[in-house]
Every structure is written in C-alpha cells, then in structure tokens.
C-alpha cells in the first residue's frame, strides 16, 4: 500500500529478512518508507551531515563539561587544564571546535539547498520553520560557546552578548548581568549552552525529522528506494565527516588566548559571527540586534512569498535576493576576518 504524497511506485525488495529480531523490538520497520532516488545524493544529505556534527558536539561537549569550571575566576584555568591535563581533553576540545565550524557550513549549505529546491512550499512550511528555528538556536549556541573559553576573545564576546541584552531593554533582561545577583552571568551562559539550547535543538530536530518522514522529501524522480536501504550510505557519509573533523582537530588544534582584561576590544569573534562584527563596525552596536533579525525575517517570509503559483519574476527576484544575501554574508565574514579589530562597545 502506498500513501506517499508523491505516489511513487513500489520500492525494491529490502532483502532484510535477517533483521527481524531487532526490527520487531526497536520498531525499525518505521524506517522502511520510500524516498525519491535522487534524494540519496549529497545535496539531500546535508541535513544528515548537520545532524552528525551535532552528535559529535554533544559527545565531546559532555566530556568537556566534566572539567570546565563556569566560575569566572576559574574558567580560563579550567580550559588550560582541559588542554594540558584532562584525559582526552585537548582532543575533545579540538573535535568540538571543528565540529562546530563544519556544522555551520553544513547548515548554510542545507538551507541553501532547500531554498534552491523550493522545498519550503506546501505542505512543508512547518518543516522549513522548524529548520529556521533550529538555525536560530544553533546561532545562539555558537555565540554562548565562544564566551565559555573566557580568554580575551571570550570575554569580549560576553561583553557584546551583554550589550545586546542591554540594548533590547526588558526583552533582553535575561541576557544581562542585572537578571540576577545570585550567580555569575558566565555560569548562566554555561547552563544555556549545555542544557536549554541543546534540549531545544533536540526537540526541534525530532519535529524536523518527523515532518521530513511524514511529508516526504521533495525529490523530482518518480523512482524510489527504501530509506532503510539509504541509511547505511548516510552512516558512511557521517563517518567520513567525523574523519574530516578529526583530521582538522589533529592538524589545526584550536588555541586559547590570555586571561581576559576588562574594558578592551582587541580581538575578533569566532568566524560564523564575523558578519555581525562587520556590520557593527559600519552601523554601530545596534547592528548586533537587527542584523540577525533581518536574516531570520527573510527566512520567515520565503514560504509566504513563494506559494501557490507565483509569477516567474517573483521567483527570480526571490532567488536573486537569497543568493545576494549569501554573497553579502560571505563577503562580510571575509572583510571582517581580514580587517584589524575594531572598537564597538559604546558606539
């Protein structure tokens, strides 16, 4: 029986008769659903690649959290301890850093691919919005993660974080020192980074995966394969991704700056945030607040603009705007990366 939205033809026999024991006990039959054959290509696997990076981050992050001290007077020393003395500390930290970097790349590629394929259209709007929310939470978890190193760069990131909270008044009070006096802000950021944000990400991933399964993948081919047969290829891709992250971790270990000195801005942030840094240099501190909102607002209106049967000019304009946004963001990252550090706080 085929109740798939695309009305694909019956898939090939699975030949998995030997896995009945585990299948019946773990409900693995739920994975035996047809997907378009062209969705087994790399472009369609970017979401899975992002998920693999997230798994690496969770596992290494769990280990790092055993040695990290979120007390401001001990945080920097605990990171030095992780690098120099904690068992597998340096390995875990480098894997964590590079998995985060690779994850940002795969997220941008995944969003770009979905945007190009127009896979945000009905009935997949909620899938798209779940993905946008995921991107937002990942952005926040990247920002909070850079604070935790608590070297000069981390401290300046914290200062920007707090400045952003101050600018938004009562809305941003949670992100300021004034929220509570019972615990240092660094400890609350640590809690955000290790508990609330990962939990939110896991919940949204669950929704995202469920919707992808139920609504199907918007592939063009009428031929299909069973997802359970595609899973080994995804697993193989995931393992290659781990190897890439591990090689980067070995060849280019992440460093650590000196203990922070308050009142100075002499470093630049983690590269995925450089585009905001560049806009701050041009427009002042308020760019910290409106620039992410502009990007996420664009993502939010895309399914509203491109729905039904839009005119060709509308479609061309939307795609041009999307491409231009990507180019501008990349150019800003490059410009900020090559420019000397600038003073922003107090602008």
């Amino acid at each position, binding site marked *: 029986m085929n109740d798939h939205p695309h009305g694909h033809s019956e*898939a*090939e026999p699975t030949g998995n008769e030997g896995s009945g024991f585990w299948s019946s006990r773990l409900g693995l039959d739920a994975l035996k659903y047809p997907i378009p054959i062209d969705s087994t290509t790399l472009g369609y696997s970017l979401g899975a690649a992002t998920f693999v990076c997230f798994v690496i981050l969770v596992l290494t992050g769990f280990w790092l959290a055993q040695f990290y001290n979120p007390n401001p007077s001990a945080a920097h020393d605990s990171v030095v301890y992780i690098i*120099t003395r904690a*068992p597998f500390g340096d390995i875990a930290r480098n894997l964590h850093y590079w998995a985060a970097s690779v994850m940002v790349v795969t997220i941008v590629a995944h969003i770009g691919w979905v945007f190009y394929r127009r896979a945000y259209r009905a009935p997949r709007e909620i899938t798209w919005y779940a993905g946008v929310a995921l991107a937002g939470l990942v952005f926040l978890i990247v920002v909070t993660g850079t604070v935790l190193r608590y070297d000069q760069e981390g401290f300046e990131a914290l200062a920007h974080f707090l400045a952003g909270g101050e600018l938004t008044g009562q809305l941003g009070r949670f992100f300021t020192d004034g929220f509570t006096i019972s615990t240092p802000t660094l400890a609350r950021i640590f809690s955000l980074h290790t508990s609330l944000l990962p939990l939110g990400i896991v919940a949204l991933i669950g929704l995202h995966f469920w919707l992808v399964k139920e609504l199907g993948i918007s592939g063009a081919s009428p031929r299909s394969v069973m997802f359970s047969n595609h899973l*080994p290829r995804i*697993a193989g891709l995931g393992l290659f991704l781990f190897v890439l992250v*591990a090689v980067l971790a070995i060849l280019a270990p992440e460093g650590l700056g000196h203990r922070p000195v308050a009142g100075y801005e002499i470093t630049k942030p983690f590269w995925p945030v450089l585009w905001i840094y560049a806009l701050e240099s041009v427009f002042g501190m308020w760019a910290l607040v409106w620039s992410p909102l502009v990007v996420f607002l664009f993502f939010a209106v895309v399914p509203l603009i491109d729905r039904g049967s839009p005119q060709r000019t509308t479609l061309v304009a939307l795609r041009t705007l999307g491409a231009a946004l990507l180019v501008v963001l990349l150019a800003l990252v490059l410009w900020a990366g090559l420019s000397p550090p600038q003073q922003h706080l107090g602008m």
Partner: protein
Amino acid sequence: MNARVSVLAVMIVAMAASQARAHEKGVITLASGMAAAGSTLQVMGEKFSSSTQLRLVLRGALSEREIGSAETDAAGGFVIELEIPAGVEPGAYRLVAVAPDGDEVASADLEVEAAPAVVPESAGAGAQEQAAGAEPAASAMPIPSAEELAIERRWSGFEWFVIGVLVGGATVAGMFLYRRPAFAT
C-alpha cells in the same frame, strides 16, 4: 565451589573494612571563603583521627602547593592560622587536608584574591590611607593581549592510539557503508 566463593567474599569485605578503618574523613572550615595572597586565614578542622599530622595543600586547576600542616588533638580537631603565600595566583582553589598515607580526608573551597597594593611605611599615614582606596599602580595593571597562549600540548600514547583507532575505523566503516547500493539488487 560455594566455599571458595564465600572465602573470597569474606576476604574482599575484610580488605574493604581494613581500608575504611585506616583514617577518619574529617571536615575543615575556613573563617572566610576568600583570602588575599599573602594574608592569613583561620582554618578549623574536626572529626579527624586523633593525634594525626595533616598536610594542607592548596590545589588549583593548574597548580598544587603545600602551604602548611596541622596536628589534630585527642578529639580529632585543630585550629590554626594558615598563611596564603604571596605568590599564589588569584583564582579558585580547594584547600585539601591530606592524611599521612596520602589520602585526602577533607577539603574546602577557597577563592584567592590578588595581594593588595603595598605602600612604603616611610610615606606616612596619610599616603597609606590614600593608597587603600587608590587605583593600582600603573605597573600592576594587567596588560590585555590578543595573542594566543603558548601552550605545550602533549597527547599521551594512549590518546594517539584511541584517536587513531577511531579515525581508522571510521574510514574503513565509512567506505564499507557508503559503497553499499541504495537498493537491493
């Protein structure tokens, strides 16, 4: 068979009991949770083994130094004035009491602050009073740096082995899984 198991169990219990009776775990209480480097701090101990010499070790994330000792009385307690060495870096530490056999028997958290600015006695009472609320001397101001710390990384042989196995295994397994056909033939 049952007799051997019983003897083994008794031996294990006896060993555990003998370990437990080696010394008592105690409690140390500090007059304050914060102390400046170079200052003295009152430390009180109780519930230790009687007439025992304890070493007091200041343990941080990156360093550890023995800073004093205390002898417990007949009731297993002590009260001492402990000097925090002037050279201790500001930060979060644990003051650990170590028994003669090397076991940690108690600990307390201690935050060490930087030593206060020192004004020469010859400067007079007015200058000293002024210095108490003044900004630190220019030479004492921390200098910010955007450079990376020169950290010596040393992965152990076991760490290299584990990462090698993980990378090698992932490569082989990845090739095997990725090359499987997407549909049954």
